[in-house]
């Protein structure tokens, strides 16, 4: 896969995320807000992005530290 294609995919995902946050802010705010973050457009996008990065890095770190061993089948 070329660098150009990789960058285009990244840009497309970022653009889609921005559009979705705007759509939420303008057209579809939370119907029955209960918690403070329900009033913040884009909190779901933040959960998706931030925790995806966190869980990948955490699993990688813990795996390397002690949770993963060479495969017994190999």
């Amino acid at each position, binding site marked *: 896969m070329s660098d150009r294609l990789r960058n285009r*995919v*990244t840009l497309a*995902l*970022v653009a*889609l*995320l921005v559009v*979705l*946050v705007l*759509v*939420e802010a303008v*057209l*579809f*705010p*939370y*119907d*029955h807000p*209960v*918690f403070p973050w*329900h009033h913040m457009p*884009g909190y*779901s*996008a*933040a*959960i*998706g*992005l*931030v*925790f*995806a*990065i966190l*869980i*990948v*890095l*955490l*699993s*990688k770190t*813990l*795996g390397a530290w*002690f*949770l*993963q*061993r*060479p*495969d*017994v*089948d*190999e």
Partner: protein
Amino acid sequence: MSSLFLHPVLPFAVAALIVPWVGVPVRRALSLVAPALALASLVALPDGAVYTLDALGHDWVLLRADGLATVFATAFILYALMAGAYAWHDTGRGPKAMSLVLAGAGTGVVLAGDLLTLFFFWEWLTIASLFLIWFGNTQKSWDAGFRYLIFHLAGAIVMLTGVLMLLGEGVTVFEVLPTGTTASWLILAGMVTNAAVPPLHAWLSDAYPEASIFGTVFLSAFTTKSAVYALVRGFPGLELLMWAGVIMALFGVFYAVMENNIRRLLSYHIISQVGYMVTGIGLGTALSLNGTSAHAFSHIFYKGLLMMSAGAVIHATGRGKLSDLGHLAKPLKWTLVLMMIGAFSISGAPLFSGFVSKSMIVSAAAYGERAPVELLLLVVSMGTFLSVALKMPWFTFAGEDRGATVLRPVPTSMYVGMGMAAFVCFITGVIPGATLYRLLPFDAVYDPFTGHHFVEVLQIMTGTALGFWLLRAYLVGKAKTTLDTDYLYRRPLGWLIFGAGDALGAAGQRVAVVNRWALDSGWRVFQFYRTRREPSTLAFQATVVVATLAVIAFLVLGL
């Protein structure tokens, strides 16, 4: 008497008894006819039908077809039909018989009205599952089966003790159980063992991937969801379950992100998704309990579909690890499409079943002002999409070419089974009001089709996709085994069986030698019957052993 003859378990039981003695065409037909007849029986039952039997000094409530039982029974029976179609080419007498026993036992658990009938079917689930694991027919499946047996026997003894204590107090009917008593704690421990609540979960991710591809497809549906049913019935609103469910959901998804074996990855997602259901039980509102019932229904089909599509990949390529797969999108395009329907369903994507079921539990947490629960369940949604809809299909069908090729085509029957499950995932996601929601047992109003819900889910998915895209190099499958809590008991158990002799001197060493001889002999006998004798011999002996155990259990409990 008409109710007894309409009992949906009967077609499964009769078919399981006939299957070992007939040829391949009849076996195949029975694997489809039995669930079809069971479904007809369930539909024909009047609302709230009950069948009781006064025998052996006990009031047996063999059938109680109320709303809660019906939603689970409908899912079990429909899924048995689809899995039967998928397993058309698995013609072995033993696997066919035991898959029917498993489906019948699951149906029996959810239709049981008293504690002893519940326990009776509960144990049949264990026995049938054990044989399906062993029918994986490898040394690993043999060992995993033994660990499964030890775990579930321990759970059964604990649960039976609690049941007998309640019977001693005059409680026989299975309804909401009193909390805070020794008996109820013991029963709860037995139930959460079958629900795979950490740290009592490792039997699932240890054993399910070791069964045959057809065996895993059956195993994925019945045991944990039967336990979910029992917890909804027995312990609704127990706050401990709410937190246990959240931990379970996070735990499963975290391990799935690390996992390399596709069937073990999906097994961890059973734990994670059952975590949502257990959380719903702990929340205890009408909406959350409906959410648990709806999500169990959805889960049975989308997880079945995912296990089926993973099985199709293994069947076609002979490989089941992400580190050995890749570049299969073209030759296995329909498998990819069907896997993605399952992946979108488990991720709660719009127009698929998880969208209309999972969100009920998350909304119930918000309406109940359980802020951490709502937030953590949203995080789990992210992890689910990351590992099942992005990581698994990407490294199976796209990614680097690791030499995986299609050695044999995926049979039409497998596509039929997957297609039927995919249809349910789609139709319940598009018109839940006319399908799934009509079955829900509790009185709660919920509309999943709001603009905000669409946008919220799409934001989580897009944000996760961006995170995956940026860090996908870190997620490349590596040939590694992930340590789980079974590590804590595998070695002590091995030491107890084989190594304790060293500490106990000559007499102890003889015990260790005998133990090793017994286990090795068991494996050799199993192999002998599997490979050199008429397969019906194994099925016959299995039937005799199981029937003997059942009769002994029945007599002991009854007397």
